[in-house]
């Protein structure tokens, strides 16, 4: 598909460095965790999870995202998608736990919306660097929400993993995780020690070029799975013994250790 010329209809300032852009293009068939390739004309095209049927939630980190932050309502971006494999939607009788760090709350929030709409109780561990950066706390209000902040400005001081270490996870049927890879890997290790990693899904991040499973830029060792096509969401069992938590590749294919 060609990029769909999409008009920005609304922008929400979520935190000093995170904005949600709403578009006049709706991806109604998208499942939570799927992504779109976002073409910022004249700059770059980068992957962004759909934080809603017609929205992406963006952290300003570099060229493309900074350019996005210069755009306003009525401006356009090109969107290709939805692509990839999203999260498994929980059944109504399942207990779910969400673990999100930073902008990693974006892929999980649509799942929390579904859980809330169905009246299922979902518990959340929501981490950020400081109180100004806590993302989507109201969307996660489908049950208990434990906030952690690195600087202790709100909730429990420390990382989501500190909170997780103190949380009994045996009652949860499904656990959904997204955040920086180091954080996700620590979560993986804690849950693996409890044999809980196989009921856990992680949304991964790798350098994407094509986004459609052809170029091979995003392949992971040792199975050669494509993060853009076979993921970005992977079950913890699939990640065992993989490069997850150890290294990724940059745009030239060189390995970079975490």
């Amino acid at each position, binding site marked *: 598909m060609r990029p769909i010329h999409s008009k920005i209809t609304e922008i929400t300032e979520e935190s000093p460095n995170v904005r949600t852009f709403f578009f006049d293009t709706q991806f109604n068939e998208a499942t939570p965790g799927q992504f779109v390739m976002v073409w910022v004309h004249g*700059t770059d095209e980068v992957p962004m999870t759909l934080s809603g049927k017609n929205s992406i939630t963006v952290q300003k980190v570099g060229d493309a995202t900074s350019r996005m932050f210069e755009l306003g309502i009525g401006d356009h971006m090109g969107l290709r998608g939805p692509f990839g494999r999203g999260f498994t939607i929980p059944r109504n009788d399942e207990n779910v736990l969400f673990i999100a760090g930073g902008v990693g709350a974006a892929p999980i929030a649509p799942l929390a919306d579904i859980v809330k709409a169905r009246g299922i109780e979902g518990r959340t561990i929501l981490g950020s660097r400081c109180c100004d950066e806590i993302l989507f706390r109201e969307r996660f209000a489908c049950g208990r929400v434990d906030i952690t902040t690195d600087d202790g400005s709100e909730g429990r001081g420390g990382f989501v993993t500190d909170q997780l270490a103190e949380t009994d996870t045996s009652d949860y049927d499904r656990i959904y995780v997204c955040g920086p890879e180091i954080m996700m890997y620590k979560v993986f290790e804690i849950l693996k020690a409890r044999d809980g990693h196989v009921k856990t899904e992680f949304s991964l991040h790798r350098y994407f070029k094509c986004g459609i499973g052809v170029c091979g830029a995003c*392949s992971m060792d040792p199975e050669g799975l494509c993060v853009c096509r076979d993921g970005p969401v992977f079950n913890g069992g699939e990640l065992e013994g993989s490069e997850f938590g150890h290294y990724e590749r940059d*745009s*030239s294919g060189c390995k970079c250790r975490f």
Partner: protein
Amino acid sequence: MKIAGIELKNPTILASGIMGTTGAALARMSRNGAGAVVTKSIGPVPNKGHNNPSMVELECGYINAMGLPNPSYSGFCEEIGIAKSKTDAPLIASIFGGDAAEFTEVANGLLSSKPDCFELNVSCPHAEGYGASVGTDPDLVHEITASVVDAVDVPVWVKLTPNVTDITSIGRAAESAGASAVVAINTVRGMAIDIHSGYPILGNRFGGLSGPAVKPVAVKCVYDLYEALDIPVIGVGGITCPQDAIEMILAGASAVEIGSAVHDDTQIFETISKGIDTYLQKYGYSKTEDITGLSHEMI
């Protein structure tokens, strides 16, 4: 089947630049049935490639301008080692450079990882100073091919660009320099523009067309090369099903490479090699070689 100096498990080969960036991905394509695998084209220094969008699906195929991203030969030896340890399908190392010296440097640099064959990319249409910039000049193609053939002790294939007036003159240059086979075709120069914003879609503005749109171009190039050369021709461009592969073989291909079609079917190699077998049986042939170039007799 033995083609151009290497023993293929079946006549389907993974084309360069598709799932070829890591040893693990190459091994996966071999598990999916590829008779041999070609690596992403590797060059002398690490290269990030062009900005995105670098590959987009169009109505009739795909357009890409990856810009030859690769970790350089020193970064890639390990990946070839991994691929070779995980599969018994032959591994063909695709390489590029700006001149004969660079090509030879890259080939020498990869030799320790023991590729079964080299494929010289003198045909990428969108990397300045590389690929088709050298592959449109028969003298340069001759010089580069001769230099690599001289340096390595495995077969050397030369991958040709269709973006020339007469592809056979380039094919002859490769053959006379000692190439064991030619591979045709690389992508066809092309461009796509977003009519709403006015921007060319690719980060590099223009790039190469692949997929179904280029198959008739590829069939004609293979047909012409088969007439002009004595060495085998490997057909590539727009093959998505057994019928496409058979058409290419009838035009003169000894084997086929498959690229973009991995998008629709990750098991495409198995699908196509089984389909070729079924066809051979149906029409009473015993091997692919029996039908290579058969359409040339139908005049």
